[in-house]
């Protein structure tokens, strides 16, 4: 059974149809990319999936549950986590705290437990800290645990966002342009990390990305959006040679030339 099934999603802003009747399915354990020119509606589509926007039409089914219209935090608690295109860390909290915030839904301490500093609460906090350190190790920034998130170098901020998303023990993680603004070396490292999300942790990954080398090397399936509509879907080879995709990216002349 598919982990995520979005059917006939339509999202309209005023007169603009940002996402138009998109159907999109993700199998568990796969790495899937969503590509398309700027303004194609990729991020809007992510925002619909994660509950930031409510779609005008269509349904989203995740892990066997119809989550259409759910609040963002409910969807996150169910195991769908994301990173943001423009990095949204809690800048004035430390690296470790950022990850701990990601664990929020998995911490049970009641308000009375916290006020009385009960044994269970202390044990849970200690465990959470260990787990957070393990995640920071996984993404490779454990030595920076006490720095403020906003003081991290750019690449590390991206890593921290991934660690924070992992803290929620997600089944599915949505990465919105995880290598934007990175140099080739950093991009290569990020590619490794994304692969390890799936291979080491069994997390399904959906990726929005502009770096075609990354997309082509890592994705098992690719969906292409243009002007809010899905214009193509398939494996790497099929997308590479699809004339509609080439047209969307390079214009009609180029598509004719390629054909």
């Amino acid at each position, binding site marked *: 059974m598919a982990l995520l099934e979005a059917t006939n999603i339509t999202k309209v802003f005023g007169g603009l149809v940002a996402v138009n009747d998109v159907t999109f399915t993700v199998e568990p354990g796969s790495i899937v990319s969503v590509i398309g020119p700027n303004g194609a509606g990729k991020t809007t589509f992510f925002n619909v999936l*994660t509950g*930031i926007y409510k779609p005008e039409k269509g349904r989203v089914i995740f892990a066997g549950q119809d989550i259409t219209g759910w*609040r*963002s*935090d*409910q969807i*996150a*608690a169910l195991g769908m*986590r*994301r990173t*943001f295109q423009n990095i*949204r*860390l*809690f*800048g*004035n*909290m*430390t690296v470790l*705290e950022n990850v*701990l*915030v*990601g*664990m*929020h*839904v998995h*911490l049970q*301490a009641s*308000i009375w437990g*916290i*006020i009385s*500093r009960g044994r269970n*609460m*202390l*044990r849970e*906090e*200690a465990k*959470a*800290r260990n787990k957070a350190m393990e995640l920071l190790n996984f993404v490779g920034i454990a030595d920076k645990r*006490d*720095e*403020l998130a906003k*003081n991290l170098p750019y690449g590390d901020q991206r890593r921290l966002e991934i660690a*924070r998303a992992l*803290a*929620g023990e997600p089944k599915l993680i949505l990465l919105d342009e995880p290598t934007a603004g990175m140099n080739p070396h950093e991009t290569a490292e990020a590619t490794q990390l994304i692969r390890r999300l799936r291979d080491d942790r069994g997390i399904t990954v959906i990726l929005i990305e502009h770096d075609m080398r990354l997309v082509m090397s890592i994705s098992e399936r690719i969906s292409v959006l243009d002007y809010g509509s899905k214009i193509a879907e398939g494996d790497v080879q099929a997308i590479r040679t699809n004339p509609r995709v080439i047209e969307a990216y390079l214009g009609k002349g180029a598509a004719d030339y390629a054909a």
Partner: protein
Amino acid sequence: MTTGASSQSLWQRVTAPLSSGPTAYAFLAFYVLICSFLLLTNPRTELSTDIVFVLFMLSMLVAYRARVATWFKVVLGVIALGIVLPYFGTLNPFYIDVATQAGIFTALALGLNVVVGFAGLLDLGYVAFFAVGAYAWGIFSTTQISNINPAWGPVDPVMFYPFLIIGLILGLITGVLLGLPVLRLRGDYLAIVTLGFGEVIRVVANNLDRPINITNGSQGIRDIERPPLVLVDLVRNLGVVADDNRLYQLFFYYLVLIIVLLTVIVVARLKNSRIGRAWEAIREDEVAAVAQGIPRVRMKLLAFAIGASFAGVMGVVFASKQLFINPPTFDLLRSINILAMVILGGMGSIPGAMLGAIIVTMLDLQILPRLASVLREAQAAGAPIPRQFDPTQYQRLFFGLLLVIMMIFRPEGLWPDERRREEQHEVEITDEELEADKLTKPTGAETGR
């Protein structure tokens, strides 16, 4: 402690040995001793005593921050706040009243700090919750209650104690009631709505003398009951010769002290928990916080409710201590004053809120009036101050100027939250922070057991 001497400022070089190691013990003991000595030998009400008094209160915060053993802090606290200050209070009752007042506002500032500092929700009507607690005890402990139903009489004064809990619950409920409709609002809009709410409560208190006289309107409620004194015989046997009024001052002082201690513990524990982190995350970036599965609405309501509950409790205490309450006691200026304490001390910082409360209360009750009277005496003695200038009229101006200057030169507050310090000045990581890290490690080890 590793000292990168070159990277340290002079201030750090001076304070570092005083806040950790054996010198810290000696320094703190000496500090408290000197202040106590100065206070007890000169209990007159004058400017120099005011200053020593402020320094004395400050010593508690310095100790709170210093890296010395917890038992030492407890001992210092018990000696200073539990013995020296009340004893000083028997010599000069004015100061114990100031200390009690400062304590009441410390609890209020700590409560508002949860809402404004932790969760980042600007609340300009905080005093409303204080009013709710105060009016609850005011109405139920006096004959006002008989106006609602002639069959009901005032409750027994001993009910004061359960009413502390009732005040807490009433504050909580009012906090949720205010929170519910305003949760979708942010920043300026939230501030305006809470401001309106604060005014509504005051106006209701002002007008609820008709058709049924519940609040006694603008005349206020007088003769509010005080709880029966506890341990009177014990205190008398200790040789304290004091009338009931003096004893009540001591009673309220200790009561407020206990409530403030509980408040500090609750607030500090909440801050370092999943709930505190969730509040902070919401304050930093709401969208990102929600994307971590944090239920925004519930967490904001919780902040409102907890902040309000402290005010509710203190309202009951305040009404009982003052014996009299009326609507102007709970006006907008009071809310703004509490907010000024939080901002002056440093938003989100627990010692900051306490320091802010102490300083603003002292300024209000002692230092500014005293400065004004000093100026007036100088004026009378022929100093070149125009006769039209009445210094007492300008107290608020001085207070306002002080706030403006503070915000320009130290926008993060007098005692900013450890992590907040950088936010405004953008300095690189200092030794101090590495040191702060060491501080957190022992607690980590403790929790690991």
